């Protein structure tokens, strides 16, 4: 740890991992309700469990992003964070808001209250007071980080990272706008959801990846930063108008079908570029960094993001296809692999890289961590295949033959059982990951050659 204030990241990463655990357990629960629909259905209905699952995901990814920023900004700007105090206050606000949201959802407190009650638009269900808290926390964060960067060295990595974080904070303001007209509601709702995950978050992901590759491979900063600009340029050029692929069937003009189809097809390019970038850098790199697990996660993130976000996204993005697949299990398949590949993995990569440094121990080969990578990635890939099959069957039966939704769902029950089993593998992987970060103080399992080659 070169700078004292990088230690802030440690607490953010701890919080992120805790919420990560909540998220995957919530997922396991929701998956079990698919298998056994009566399971505690009066106590915790599916909608509440699902809210916890998705909201926890968003919260921990953001905590991870903030942590990543606190870890890499001092190193990039070559100075201490402007104010560690503010960073901890921000963390406090975020955790309070998270706890508040969880309690509100679970017990449905203050039902219908405009300030304290749950709001109920997908992913932005947080009560208004939590939303305000998020904005305050974001402002504190941006103030703190921007000031640090402005006073210190400015690099392409911090430029892109800050742009991404500023963008995501500003776009969140649309969460306060809820028009009575459902079509307008949906249109601006996607300003948050799409422009986060296929716009600003991609900037954050690319900059974290660039930072990791810079450290892990030892390739020249010049080269890395040029790649970074090409990647983020193609990401925004395709991603902004790519929003059109959500505008096909919500009451917007028909031209979005063509804009959406063309631009979101091109959204594959930045993910392909990120994958090529990672492998080319590792291949060119001269450094043999001891933290093999971090490298594995970084390469894994780029690769699985390409398949999950790129390939699986393209599968159902053309409007002729989407007309039939929209809102089926195909979407769920894509959503799971895309989020895992792009944002979960990149967070776990930076945590894997930073934790040994933050805890002042050796970055040994971390075989346990690498095992958790294969468990999670394997589980998630299998889940994606299973849901894709279920979605294909559903699409045909429901959208082409016009059969009843519930009957089809019962028909694909077997797929939901297999999905739950693969989910279990992911949960075990996640717990193993957290264990590997926090508990071992030395190498537990001596690395074999096999792991060596997989990590390289």
């Amino acid at each position, binding site marked *: 740890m070169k700078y004292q204030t990088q230690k802030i990241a440690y607490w953010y990463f701890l919080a992120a991992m805790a919420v990560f655990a909540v998220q995957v357990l919530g997922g396991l629960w929701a998956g079990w*309700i*698919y298998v*056994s*629909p*009566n399971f505690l*259905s*009066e106590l915790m*209905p*599916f*909608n509440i469990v*699902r*809210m916890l699952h998705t909201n926890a995901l968003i919260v921990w990814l953001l905590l991870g992003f903030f942590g990543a920023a606190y870890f890499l900004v001092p190193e990039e700007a070559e100075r201490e964070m402007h104010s560690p105090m503010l960073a901890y206050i921000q963390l406090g606000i975020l955790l309070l808001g998270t706890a508040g949201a969880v309690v509100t959802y679970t017990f449905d407190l203050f*039902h219908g209250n405009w300030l304290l*009650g*749950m*709001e*109920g*638009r*997908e992913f932005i*269900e947080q009560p208004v007071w939590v939303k305000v808290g998020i904005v305050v926390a974001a402002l504190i964060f941006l103030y703190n980080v921007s000031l640090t960067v402005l006073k210190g060295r400015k690099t*392409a990595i911090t*430029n892109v990272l800050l742009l991404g974080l500023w963008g995501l904070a500003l776009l969140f303001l649309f969460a306060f706008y809820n028009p*009575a*007209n*459902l*079509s*307008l509601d*949906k*249109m601006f709702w996607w300003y948050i959801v799409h422009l986060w995950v296929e716009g600003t978050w991609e900037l954050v992901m690319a900059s974290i990846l660039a930072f990791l590759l810079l450290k892990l491979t030892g390739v020249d900063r010049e080269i890395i*930063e*040029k790649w970074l*600009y*090409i990647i983020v*340029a193609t990401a*925004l*050029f395709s991603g*902004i*108008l790519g*929003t059109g692929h959500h*505008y096909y*069937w*919500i*009451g*917007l*003009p*028909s031209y*979005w*079908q063509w*804009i959406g189809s063309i631009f979101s097809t091109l959204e594959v390019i930045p993910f392909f570029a990120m994958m090529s970038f990672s492998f080319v850098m590792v291949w060119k790199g001269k450094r043999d960094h001891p933290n093999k697990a971090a490298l594995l996660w970084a390469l894994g993130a780029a690769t699985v993001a390409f398949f999950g976000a790129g390939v699986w996204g393209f599968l159902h993005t053309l409007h002729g296809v989407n*007309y*039939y697949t*929209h*809102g089926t*299990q195909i*979407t769920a398949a894509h959503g799971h692999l895309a989020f895992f590949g792009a944002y979960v993995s990149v967070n776990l990569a930076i945590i894997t890289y930073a934790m040994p440094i933050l805890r002042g121990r050796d970055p040994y080969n971390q075989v346990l961590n690498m095992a958790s990578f294969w468990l999670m990635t394997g589980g998630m890939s299998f889940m994606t295949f299973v849901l894709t099959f279920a979605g294909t069957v559903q699409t045909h039966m*429901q*959208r082409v033959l*016009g059969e009843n*939704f*519930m009957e089809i769902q019962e028909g694909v029950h077997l797929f939901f059982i297999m999905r739950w089993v693969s989910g279990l593998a992911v949960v075990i992987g996640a717990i193993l990951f957290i264990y590997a970060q926090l508990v071992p103080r030395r190498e537990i399992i001596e690395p074999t050659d096999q792991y060596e080659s997989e990590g390289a």
Partner: protein
Amino acid sequence: MREVMTKTMARNVFYGGSLFFIVVFLILSAHSVRYVVTKSTANAELTESVARGKHVWEKNACINCHTLMGEGAYFAPELQNVMSRWGVADDPEAAFEVLKGWMEAQPTGIEGRRQMPQFNLSDEQIRELADFFLWVNQIDAQGWPPNEAG
């Protein structure tokens, strides 16, 4: 040797290009808002009751099981065209009655069936929710969903 690519140029193209696409996106958004207001949702009047019905829909987190216009949780049926599916799209009174009957029968408790919670809605709320579904049913969504199954 000449530099093939400078960081300044890469940065400028990135910023300039992004700005360009943001402008294009905003122009199209403005046009779309007008289209929604004057065309696609102009088939039925957006009354106070519809607006309140939308809040009933939201405060009970319906979207976390159902989908509405294909967006939501895929756990329970699509509801944009639910009033057509029930055959009451043109009859607000019948729409209210059918929805009331449905809501009050939940949860069914049938073993092995997905359960919908009991939301304890008042008659007024059920009427507003029905009005909301009737209004949503009127949105011109480019011919989606493909059939009554939603």
